[in-house]
């Protein structure tokens, strides 16, 4: 089944929050909606979930209309599960009761008791909660709570799983571990996953496609590789792949760097960037040397990150970011050359 969003607009009072969103989410697709806070990503998720009626536009799952100008299917009648940033667990229920809860609804009245029991056992087992089944949420750690929340969302086998920044409340290491869990869930259930996040590394790591949003409009939609290597706007270039934007002039498929005798090749730079005379260079595409053929720059700061060292450099009036391998040590104040390697 695929989910169709057609001409979705949302206004809060006179403030436009979403402006004409059109999107088809393919069957079993893992779509990440990525953007800074206030870009409208959570609003879009709430519209899909039915927590919010769009000002105009249509949401439909294949032929079933969920929201349009005349129809507003209530949340409970939509075929979905949801995971929240705050976990949204109920303090008075045990882990098992949480997982059983969705199957007690009228929607699942048709399931035979054995099927329900098997589904509960499966969901608890899949999320590794067997030993914790009789605990209350207050007795669980953050990661365990989010597992309960995931088990609750998948137990009724919904066609769509909505995830609203599910990893934001967890600490750094746990975040990375939970990514794999969510990918496993996606493989096992085959559900559409719509995953809202402001963390580009999460989106790049897990999603089949990424929807980058800003100011309530779609900036770019594509696979993680496309978004990362071929950003179509200045915003995507800087927000997702942390590109340095070089100024210069485009002559055919050659980019002449302003004020320098260097020419960079066209690696598939998007038209909107070309039009503005910009060339995006990702931090790892510059190589720092003392005397290579490159832009003159001065090191201003160094941060050691283990496998990489992050340098801040000034190049003319611009501030650039360069990621170097851990052996390549330079000192603040040194004059260096930035060699572009495509």
């Amino acid at each position: 089944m695929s989910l169709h969003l057609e001409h979705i607009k949302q206004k809060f009072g006179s403030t436009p929050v979403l402006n004409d969103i059109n999107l088809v989410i393919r069957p079993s697709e893992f779509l990440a909606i990525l953007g800074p806070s206030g870009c409208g990503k959570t609003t879009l998720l709430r519209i899909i979930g039915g927590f919010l009626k769009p000002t105009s536009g249509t949401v439909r799952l294949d032929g079933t209309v969920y929201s349009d100008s005349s129809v507003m299917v209530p949340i409970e009648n939509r075929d979905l599960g949801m995971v929240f940033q705050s976990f949204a667990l109920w303090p008075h229920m045990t882990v098992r009761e949480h997982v059983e809860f969705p199957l007690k609804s009228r929607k699942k009245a048709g399931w035979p008791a054995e099927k329900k029991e098997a589904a509960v056992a499966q969901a608890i087992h899949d999320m590794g909660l067997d030993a914790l089944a009789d605990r209350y949420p207050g007795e669980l750690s953050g990661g365990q709570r989010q597992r309960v929340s995931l088990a609750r969302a998948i137990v009724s086998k919904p066609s769509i799983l909505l995830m609203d920044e599910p990893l934001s409340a967890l600490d750094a290491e746990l975040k990375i571990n939970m990514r794999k869990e969510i990918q496993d869930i996606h493989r096992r259930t085959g559900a559409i996953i719509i995953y809202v996040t402001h963390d580009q590394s999460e989106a790049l790591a897990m999603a089949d496609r990424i929807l980058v949003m800003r100011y309530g409009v779609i900036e770019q939609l594509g696979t993680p590789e496309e978004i990362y290597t071929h950003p179509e706007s200045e915003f995507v270039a800087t927000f997702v792949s942390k590109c340095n934007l070089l100024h210069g002039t485009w002559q055919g498929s050659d980019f002449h760097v302003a004020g320098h005798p260097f020419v960079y090749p066209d690696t598939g730079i998007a038209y909107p960037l070309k039009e503005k005379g910009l060339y995006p260079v990702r931090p790892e595409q510059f190589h720092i040397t003392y005397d290579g053929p490159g832009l003159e720059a001065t090191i201003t700061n160094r941060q050691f990150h283990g496998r990489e060292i992050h340098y801040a450099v000034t190049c003319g009036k611009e501030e650039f970011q360069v990621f170097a391998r851990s052996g390549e040590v330079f000192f603040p104040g040194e004059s260096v050359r930035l060699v572009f390697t495509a």
Partner: protein
Amino acid sequence: MLSSKIQRPIVRLVFYSLLCFVFVAPVLRLCVMSFHGAEGYSLANFITLFHDQRTWEAIKNTLIISIASTIMAAFVGSFLAFVSAYTNIRHKKLLELLVLMPFIIPSYIVTLSWSGLLLKQGHINTFVTSLGLAPLDLYSLTGIWVVLGFINIPVVYLSVVHMLRKIPAEMEWASRACGFTIWQTIWRIDLREVWPAIASGSLLAFLAAIDNFSVPAFLGISSGIPVLSTYIYEKAISFGPDAFPMAAALSVLLSCIAIGWTLLESCFVHSRSAMESIKEDFQPRIILNGSRRKILEWGVTGLLSLLNFVPLADMILNAFLKNYGLAVTYSNISLRNFSFVFTNTGVLTAVRNSLILALVTCLVCIVIGTVLAFRQVRCHSLAAAIAEKCAALTYALPGIVLALAMIFQWTEPLPGVRPQLYGTIYILLFAYITRYLILQIKSSKTALNAINPELEDAVRASGGSMLSVWRYVLVLLLMRPVLSGSFLIFGLSLTELTLSSILASAGTKTIGLTIFSFQQAGDYSLSAAMSTVVVLLLLGGYMLAWATSLKKKEKNVYELASRTHKTEIRQHASA
């Protein structure tokens, strides 16, 4: 100068003995007095009481009234809290004001106005009897618990409404995503979450019902319906050698009921580690469509306005008539009642007494309460924490019991010392301060907790002394929240009746007691006129406070609280 090594234990000793002397000793004296008889100490008082049919009747009535009024307050209060917290009705501010009205108007004035409205020959009862029904009689057991239930609605409402707003909306969304409708969600999730708040609100309502003296005094004494609080009053003001011991024994019984109920309830309600958010969420969660919303909106606010304002309006109107219950014609209108109220020396003295008592109580409570709160919040002083528990004890005791305890304590505070306080205004002052101090400690604590201690550290780090911390930071930031807390104390002590009914004497009557005496003497018109003045003053005062609070919206409270401190506030709130 003594060195601080010797000084500190001495200060501590003095402080603790003062605590015992002011808060604990009166209670102990009361207990001792209940065993006191003509032939030394024995259980004789209790045996005599239990042989008296009237005691059993009073216990039975007390239980019936308290339980019935609690059930009423719990249902209505919780329902109104749900409507106010979750639905999308408009004019919620007005609704809240109407619900809290019985907090503003003293309960004896509410009772007075209701009994005036339901006079046997009044409009309502004329109408009811014309339908062939029995007239509504407020001077009955049912009348007492209905009025008490109505008065205690805000107690439950306040406890429930904040909890409801604190339940995160995500918890409901999660349930709806699981396939449940909003009503099923309210039933299965929200009601379970808010249950402890309903229970603790009901407990407070029950204790308030047991404690209440004015309602059964106004409605029950003349119609011969004894409850424990009025029975104690009758015993205490009667003459005879065993008056006080008997009253003390009854007080012990009443306190036992209060403590017993509290224990019973704590067995049933377990506090679980709540996961509510610290911030209240005011977004409506149940969206009613136009016509349903209007019906609810008009139904609830309309009914509450009727219940609140019609009796009051009726009372005010009657105060302008020559006699209570006369037809409103030009010839019947007179200002006689008011001219009496404004010229009678007894009334004027009472007003002066109440004003002085309220003011001094407020000032003393602000100073002592804020210092104790500061010691507790900032210095984690054990002594201050114990002081709070002691002050809570004298507030938890029924007022009539505390009044008796005050007499026993202050007629001879130390062996051989007889300061002759009984009969003067000082015993009233002591009683008010002992009773209301806890309210100021609580509100000062809340105010202090909302202030980031780093603000004070910053003054010290910039070279300021402790004096400048108070002068430039604390006094300015605490002023508003602390004053709003003491405003409550001012209102309570200005219109106080229970304590003064026992402690006041000829020259030290209070406003509440004057209205009570008029009513007991059958002078409804005078009591109505005096109540009118009090109501207008109170409403005026609250309007003024409300208007100033609207002007300065509190924006800075949350910004001032640091992260670590918020968790502390939270723990404090859940404790």
